[in-house]
């Protein structure tokens, strides 16, 4: 089997969520099939500037073909077009203009894929919202397997994505919540799909004492790992934690790992360590009492899975359906929606607290059951083999005509934010999956 994996950025040092996801999947599938990654020369996800040379190279044993980006993203234009399509009644032409301004616009990559499509059995596309995914899904729908990495943000409410989500051969979802949201917005229930997610390269051994020595941390702490950004809920996290620290002088400290794009409060109990190596990250997780995930929008939190893999409970933002659903299904974490809940749950999850050990154990079991690499690989291979057995997709799905010139310019599409607001929300509670019911069944 020969597979093409198409993603906006790719590299051993590129740690964006979807990009890392794509690299892990490419490296794992390369053990079972011939894999070639198609990507851009961009390294920066804001401008898509061509930082890397075009052409073929090998990254961790996987062939990677890079194509230049035609034009860098103009944040002003992108912002203006985003407001138009998210907030106002607009046309399909507006949405296409939004897609082009979001980028990364690399027509050379699309052309190459279309020309060489006969060489590949399937094309695995990452991140539905980007230029490459939409164009490839439209032109090579018969071979496209989409990993949407969709969050509950207004982009999913844009009308152009409906046909793309309905016509691909299969969809590999990250969570039941993502599947529910995509099916509700696009009506693609007949497209084969499976909730897969992604595993993680969790080391067999960690050394929490080394981490504490290295960074001079003596007190017990909760940890946040990721970009320190208002969009990731860090503003709320800081506000809540400062109140918590004032109320509980001997409670947990907060350790932050990741680059900051917002000011980190100067507080004696908040320790910002910046970007650290993977070894430090895993040792930090092992040294922490728990992981805090304050993000409102997540398609799948890899760092939460890593915390569970190391037996650490997770405290998640309850307004994020995916994280809340995962906490409930795994029995490996709690969630909060306001300060009082934050303080109470944080207290309950301290390592001396009553729940820490049990939730950590549940989390580890959940990770092993759902996100261990053999499980992930098996799900991908099963899906690809199933698609191979199916001779041709049904024509109804593959033939969804693109609107004409005039239709594309009719301003009759509702604001995307309104569309998303109408989609049912809330965690998907697969009752058979919760630890209590599993034990009962056993």
């Amino acid at each position, binding site marked *: 089997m020969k597979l093409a994996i198409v993603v906006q950025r790719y590299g051993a040092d590129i740690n964006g969520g979807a990009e890392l996801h794509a690299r892990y999947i490419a490296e794992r599938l390369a053990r079972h099939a011939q894999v070639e990654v198609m990507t851009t020369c961009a390294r920066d996800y804001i401008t898509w500037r061509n930082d890397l040379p075009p052409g073929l190279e090998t990254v961790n044993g996987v062939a990677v073909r890079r194509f230049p980006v035609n034009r860098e993203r103009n944040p002003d234009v992108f912002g203006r077009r985003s407001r138009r399509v998210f907030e106002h009644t607009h046309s399909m032409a507006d949405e296409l203009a939004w897609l082009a301004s979001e980028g990364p616009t690399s027509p050379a990559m699309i052309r190459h894929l279309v020309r060489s499509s006969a060489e590949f059995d399937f094309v695995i596309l990452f991140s539905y919202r980007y230029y490459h995914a939409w164009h490839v899904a439209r032109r090579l729908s018969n071979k496209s397997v989409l990993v949407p990495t969709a969050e509950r943000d207004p982009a999913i409410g844009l009308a152009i994505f409906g046909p793309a989500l309905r016509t691909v051969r299969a969809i590999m979802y990250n969570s039941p919540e993502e599947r529910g949201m995509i099916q509700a917005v696009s009506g693609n229930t007949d497209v084969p799909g499976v909730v897969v997610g992604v595993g993680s390269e969790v080391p067999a051994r960690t*050394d929490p*004492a080394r981490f504490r020595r290295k960074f001079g941390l003596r007190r017990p702490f909760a940890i946040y790992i990721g970009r320190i950004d208002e969009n990731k809920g860090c503003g709320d996290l800081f506000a809540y934690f400062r109140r918590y620290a004032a109320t509980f002088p001997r409670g947990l400290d907060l350790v932050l790992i990741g680059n900051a794009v917002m000011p980190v409060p100067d507080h004696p109990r908040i320790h910002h360590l910046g970007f650290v190596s993977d070894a430090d990250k895993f040792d930090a997780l092992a040294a922490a009492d728990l992981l805090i995930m304050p993000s409102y929008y997540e398609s799948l939190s890899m760092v939460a899975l890593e915390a569970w893999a190391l037996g650490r409970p997770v405290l998640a933002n309850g307004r994020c359906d995916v994280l809340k659903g995962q906490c409930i299904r795994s029995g490996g974490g709690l969630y909060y929606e306001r300060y009082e*809940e934050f303080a109470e749950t944080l207290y309950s999850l301290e390592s001396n607290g009553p729940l820490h050990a049990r939730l950590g154990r549940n989390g580890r079991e959940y990770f092993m059951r759902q996100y261990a690499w053999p499980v992930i690989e098996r799900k991908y291979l099963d899906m690809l083999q199933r698609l191979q057995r199916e001779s041709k997709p049904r024509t109804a799905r593959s033939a969804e005509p693109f609107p004409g010139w005039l239709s594309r310019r009719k301003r009759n599409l509702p604001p995307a934010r309104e569309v998303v607001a109408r989609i049912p929300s809330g965690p998907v509670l697969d009752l058979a999956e919760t630890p209590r019911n599993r034990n009962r069944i056993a």
Partner: protein
Amino acid sequence: MSDFSVRSDSVDVEQIMRQIRARIREKRGVDYTEEEIRELANVKLEKFLDPKGVRSDLLEQYRRKRDESTGPRNYAFEDTTLYASSRPFLRFLRKLLNPILKLFFNPNPLIEALHIQSRLNDSYNQAESLYYELIHNLVLETTRLGIEVKNLRMRVESMSSRLDFDERRARALEGVVQYRPGAVAPLQPPTGGGTQSTDADQAERRSRRRRRRGRRRSGSGGAGEGRAPQGQGGSAAQPQPERASEDSDAGGDSGES
């Protein structure tokens, strides 16, 4: 904060969250949303509880403004007011024609009503400044009470967190400290004075007392004699609860990975 009772390995996260929310409701009385609480807090702080917002010269300012204002205060209305005039001839003529006026309507109820109203206005004016003073004092008192409540709440929270910490520390120590029968002899409770002690015991005690006295006499001139060396005394043997709990935690971590 009290602990949860988790009785089995199976943990129902939703149930725990329900318990947490119930506890928050218990503490707070009514389950307001974050926005509602913020709104209430803002209103209180702005309107009542901000001591800077209450002016100590409020009453004086009010009185001064009242004196400065040019509006009519009240009117006097007696039974002669209707016929009053600065010209005596006109006043006389009105009185003379009064019976003819009464043929058309009775002015007495009107005179009476306006008279009562004028007296009411007077009493209202007097009460107004009293009410104002009362409200002023109430606001000051509310402010003082609010600040006091706030302080007390902070103290309660602080004590509650200390209590929680102590409970946890005790729990951690119970897990860490192991009782070894041969290591330290357990303390014996007093057993009813010297009635059961033997003569040999009493003799031993007496000789110890004598030895101590002798040592005190001889040691009065020599500094440090008979004293435990620094750093080896009781302080080193004192339990250090925080370290103990940290050690136990670290041990758990390394064992896990």
